[in-house]
């Protein structure tokens, strides 16, 4: 076949720029002032991993406290702060930055752009998110200082009014929660705007919307979705602060205000938020499953439709978190139906992923192992989700450990697994080196075993009536055996994450050189060097199908003929 080198070959000075040692300060300066989407993506990722370790440590403390009944490892006040900060951290300082980490690093590369649409806004959004996170954690040393863990929030990440009002939450604990999340919320809005503007206005020539790789599609929907998801929380936190600082009465039940209004507002944010967090997992799965099964994604248009469908339906299901607050029976029935409807597009996604693997040649590299485990766990999470959507059963299961198990199946079993998968998959692109497969397999199996020890058993202790948010439990309830298993599983997961962290760092320096396209993949990011140059592509790419690299690798049988 014809050797189609660049038309400008020879027209340029080909000598690479002088390799120069940068001092630490220079390097630091270049990262702090950068507006490059790849550096910002990596910083988002480092922020997520850092807070994942912090939030994970909090989880370990929680599990040590609950391992045996009547434990005195931490005080009740500290325990309440720990689980509040654990939830808040994992959702806002791990999950949300992850969305932008992937969107920042991968989307411009996949759509053949040089950068995000608004590079400076991008940097601003990142720093807001990071400073918001640090501000939240300052609460541990703010207030009365480290003694009694300062004034860290202790009102659960739902922060149900009126517990959050001045009368029941004096001091600044709740203020830290609301203010810090408003700050990160602004960062999130900026990030969301950036993603949609990038996808709409920055695509390379020939890349129509229906030729975008599914990863970029999902991130695009996520970016748009974030705008209407995070803002209700910001608005209601502003109301909460008006109540706390200016003596307003939005949630003041003594003055006619309503506690249920907060619940509605919170879950109008809170439920779609889960989908915001899980979309990157869908996005990564769609890429990884294709490449490691060696097959084109089955039913691409249906997958696009399903992701939009999920986003639409999920904004009308929020009150399924509130079946126990005494809604009318008709209201309960409505939210049962709308919730179960979410299962339909979700089912389409699972089936289409399965059909993609069907007939393929599946290579069990570490990314694919995580993706297969994801499929399995996402299926289970969907089924326990159906159980929870059954309002009468929800009256029993709500607020119990069953719910904890269910949503950790999503947050860990789906999201964290796919995040690991994505890191193993794109690490070679970002650093030019492969991650160790041996350590990767150790990481996978330990994490898989730890995960199932922890969260499978949690379902059962939920059936036995153990509620969430309790810092201790009586010995005669028969919960202790399961809780011990849960805690052991938690420790195993912790060890697995440490192995991962070691793998990350050691591979960065000693990993095998990756080359540009180690997985033999099909999207544009693999058509540039590893790591990509600051301008991504020396020449602007032109594409004709959603697998441009397949077209080049198989010119006799390209996708665009069937477009």
């Amino acid at each position, binding site marked *: 076949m014809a050797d189609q080198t660049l038309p400008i070959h020879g027209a340029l000075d080909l000598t*690479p720029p002088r390799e120069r040692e940068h001092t630490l300060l220079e390097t630091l300066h270049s990262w702090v002032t950068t507006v490059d989407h790849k550096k910002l993506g990596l910083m988002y990722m480092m922020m997520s991993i850092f807070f994942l370790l912090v939030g994970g440590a909090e989880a370990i403390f929680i599990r040590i406290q609950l391992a045996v009944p009547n434990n005195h490892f931490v005080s009740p006040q500290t325990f309440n702060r720990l689980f509040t900060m654990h939830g808040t951290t994992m959702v806002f300082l791990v999950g949300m930055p992850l969305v932008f980490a992937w969107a920042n690093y991968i989307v411009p590369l996949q759509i053949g752009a040089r950068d995000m649409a608004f590079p400076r806004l991008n940097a601003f959004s990142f720093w807001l998110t990071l400073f918001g996170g640090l501000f939240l954690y300052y609460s541990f040393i703010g207030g009365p200082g480290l003694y009694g863990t300062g004034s860290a929030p202790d009102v659960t990440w739902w922060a149900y009014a009126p517990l959050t009002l001045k009368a029941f939450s004096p001091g600044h604990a709740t203020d830290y929660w609301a203010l810090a999340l408003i700050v990160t919320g602004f960062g999130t809005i900026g990030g969301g705007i950036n993603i949609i503007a990038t996808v709409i206005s920055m695509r390379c020539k020939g890349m129509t919307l229906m030729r975008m790789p599914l990863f970029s599609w999902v991130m695009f929907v996520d970016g748009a979705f974030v705008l209407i998801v995070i803002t209700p929380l910001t608005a209601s936190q502003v109301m909460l602060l008006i109540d706390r600082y200016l003596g307003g009465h939005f949630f003041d039940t003594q003055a006619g205000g309503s506690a249920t209004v907060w619940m509605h507002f919170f879950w109008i944010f809170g439920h779609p938020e889960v989908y915001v967090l899980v979309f990157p997992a869908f996005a990564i799965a769609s890429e990884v499953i294709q490449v490691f099964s060696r097959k084109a994604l089955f039913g691409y248009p249906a997958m696009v439709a399903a992701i939009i469908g999920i986003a639409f339906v999920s904004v009308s299901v929020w009150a399924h978190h509130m079946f126990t607050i005494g809604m009318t029976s008709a209201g309960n029935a409505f939210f049962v139906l709308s919730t179960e409807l979410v299962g339909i597009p979700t089912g389409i996604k699972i089936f289409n992923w399965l059909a993609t693997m069907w007939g393929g040649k599946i290579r069990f590299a570490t990314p694919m192992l995580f993706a297969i485990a994801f499929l399995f766990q996402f299926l289970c999470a969907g089924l326990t989700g159906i159980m929870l959507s059954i309002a009468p059963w929800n009256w029993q299961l709500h607020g119990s450990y069953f719910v904890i198990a269910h949503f950790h199946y999503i947050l860990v079993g789906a999201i964290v697994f796919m995040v690991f998968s994505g890191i193993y998959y794109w690490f070679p692109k970002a650093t030019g080196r492969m991650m160790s497969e041996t350590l990767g397999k150790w990481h996978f199996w330990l994490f898989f075993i730890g995960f199932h020890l922890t969260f499978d058993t949690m379902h059962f202790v939920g059936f036995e009536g153990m509620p969430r948010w309790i810092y201790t439990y009586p010995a005669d309830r028969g919960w202790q055996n399961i809780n011990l298993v849960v805690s052991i599983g938690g420790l195993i997961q912790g060890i697995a994450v440490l192995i991962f962290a070691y793998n990350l760092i050691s591979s960065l320096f000693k990993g095998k050189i990756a080359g540009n396209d180690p997985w033999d993949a099909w999207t544009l990011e693999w058509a540039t060097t590893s790591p990509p140059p600051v301008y991504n592509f020396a020449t602007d790419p032109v594409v004709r199908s959603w697998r441009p690299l397949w077209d080049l690798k198989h010119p006799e049988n390209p996708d665009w003929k*069937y477009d």
Partner: protein
Amino acid sequence: MNEQQKPGSHTETIHLPAPTAWPIVLAFGSTLLFAGLVTSPWISVLGGILMVCGAVGWFRLVLPHEVHEDIPVVVEHIPIETTRREVERIVIPEGDRAHLPVETYPIISGIKGGLAGGVAMIPPALLYGLIAQHSIWYPVNLLGGAGVANWRNPTTADIAAFHWQGLLVANVIHWTACVLVGLLYGAMLPMLPRRPILLGGVIAPVLWTGMLHSVMGVVNPVLDEHIAWGWFLISQVCFGVVAGVVVARQERIRTTQSLPFLMRMGIETPGLVQEHKEDDRK
């Protein structure tokens, strides 16, 4: 691509937005502004000052023209190739169409079939009502009652009377279910190996009725007691046969029985086309 860069144009350097510290200053200022609320007002004042500085600095970066830095381009030859040159193909008999057009099994045929079947179900149901309970509303209310779940322990006379809610709910349930099942027929019938009408029109309704029979006891036990399952089966079969015939008529011409299973599923794959165009292969 940046605005000033036309696609496909090349220069020795590429303009990219210059690194800048103003975003971080603005972000830090905003955070301090909020942090002042829980610490000291002076923190807020400091934050406000930083914000103004950051905003002005940022503003001067983009107006009147965006500040860029020039990045020298290093052109590398990036080969895009794979060791997997061969692509397997799904082999199908010579002479068949490979890439099935969607129109072969139009989705509308399923809807048509479902609606026609839905009409066909009505006479036996009403007939049953007239014969068994002397009221055409009896079957309507039975169906509607499944939706009106707060209908407590109705008597037979209750069920035989006219209720507009029952009629409404029954219609909604009936037509929704018919269209859905019709769609399923439209999708599935062409896949069945032979005698699609027998399978789809008779055996499927029997299975379906059996399933409903066992499930109805849980879905709505009160109404379960009032349903005459024989008549129920008859009207299901009516639906199945009519819907099946309508669906099958829509594409009888195209549904060649010799087609392999994969093709009847309407699988879209380039491999099939390649097989067709023998001369293109290398």
